[in-house]
């Protein structure tokens, strides 16, 4: 392990982007960080609202057409190495909003997060449980450190 990844391991910064779900997943993610019961900070992961500081981007919600461009902009302004964790059923598949009555696609949704930016880890659930968010974010940290050394 190089000196850079050793330093980064102590302060992973997580940024939350919300792209139009029902708000349930977002509150569970904020809960993961703020609630002492789950407390992701014990794994040296901190919440930030600045994309220039972030290492891990957590995306929730089906990407509506209006939020597609801001999401790409936020993704591009994160310095390398960066990882994306898609959280919740909407972010993985589009959820109940993606299709109207079976196969007829909705005009409002630009698709799951996969269609817009590359995704490294997927956390299922509607809404996600905080334990799963902790497990999902912590499981990508070794990949982040590996990328740092290259």
């Amino acid at each position, binding site marked *: 392990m190089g000196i850079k990844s050793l330093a980064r391991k102590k302060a992973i910064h997580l940024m939350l*982007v919300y792209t139009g779900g029902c*708000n349930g997943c977002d509150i569970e993610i904020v809960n993961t960080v703020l*609630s002492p019961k789950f407390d992701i900070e014990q794994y040296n992961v901190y919440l930030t609202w600045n994309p220039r500081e972030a290492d891990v981007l957590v995306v929730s919600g089906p990407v509506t057409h209006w*939020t597609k461009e801001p999401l790409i902009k936020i993704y591009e302004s994160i310095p390398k190495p960066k990882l994306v964790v898609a959280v919740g059923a909407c972010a993985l598949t589009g*959820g109940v*909003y993606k299709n109207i009555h079976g196969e007829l696609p909705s005009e409002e949704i630009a698709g799951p997060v996969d269609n817009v930016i590359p995704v490294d880890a997927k956390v299922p659930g509607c809404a996600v449980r905080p334990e799963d968010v902790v497990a999902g974010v912590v499981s990508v940290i070794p990949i982040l450190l590996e990328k740092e050394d290259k």
Partner: protein
Amino acid sequence: MVTKIDGATTCNETERQVFETELNMGTVHPAALEPYRVRLFIEDEIVKDAEITVGVNHRGIERIMEGLPVEKANALTEKVCGICSNGHIFNSCRTGEGALGIEIPERAKYLRVLAQELERLHSHMLYLGHGSEVLCHETFAMRIFYIRESVMDLLFMMGGNRVQYGISVLGGIRPRADLNSREKQRILDTMDYIDEKVAAFAERFVADPMVMSRITGTGELSQKQALDLHVTGPTLRATGYEFDYRTKMPEYEPFEFNVITQDGGDVRANILMRATEIFESTNIIRQVIKGLPEGPIVNRNWELTDAPVYKSYIEVPRGVCYHSYGLEDGKVRHSIIRTPSMSNIAAMQESCIGHPVQDAQLNIVSCDPCFTCTDRAIQIIKL
């Protein structure tokens, strides 16, 4: 541009006033949890005018509901909002039952009130936590989030999920959500725990001179303004006007509770308002458990028929929520959902005006915004 005429706000395109500086934020901004756009017009660090726009996360859920059988559409309304999800499924089941003329068993009515009050508890605690975080007092936020977990555990016990618990179905409640004696005792124990912990929290909060001087007199909204703007829920009650739709709902008739009001309409009144309402909710939950009648929990004897447009209003944690259904052969022909934040947006704009720009975020948060569920199609009819 919004211009002020006699305290009320009206849209007037012709009288456009030009301000020195404009500060805009959004629509997707890292500092705001939900996507919305705020434009603040500033002169000498004082906000002269404010404008909040939503519409980014419109998902067209009413469009998806069209043509579905009414019990499937009810399950979809839960996905409107992640905070007051039970309020939406409760109201849509109420609408469907009213339209089709379905009788609900007494026990199901009591358990629906129980779920609604548990949701009010967790929503108000989320407000207190979010408000404390915007005040930059993270210790208070962590403390209230820890108390909130006990309510989330009760909802998980009843519905099997932490956010979308889906307790109501057409004709009653799900068999999963029925309570046995052990679960009843657990709810009573948790209510005692919440009363004790929230009282200690509120005492500590009020005794903190730094926090109180920050929130007293910030973001004032007068009672006349609130009534002109048709503000609902705790934000209206914080201005001293006694209005609670629960007093008019037949579900709440067996229970005794007070309508809490606070004077001032500033951030302090809003925060104390929610903290005091927590004790009323725990009181109602104790009465529900004490008087819970025995009997069936769901009525399956109903048929899907045609029904004219039926409207239903209930009190959800943020104010009055409206649902309507028009049914054709039991399938949803049209549906309208109106959430309380729709009318509270005006209060958010108004409470920013005349105050320093650094208080703007706090003033918006003090009106308890939920922009996600507010994003419905609105048609403005010019008369």
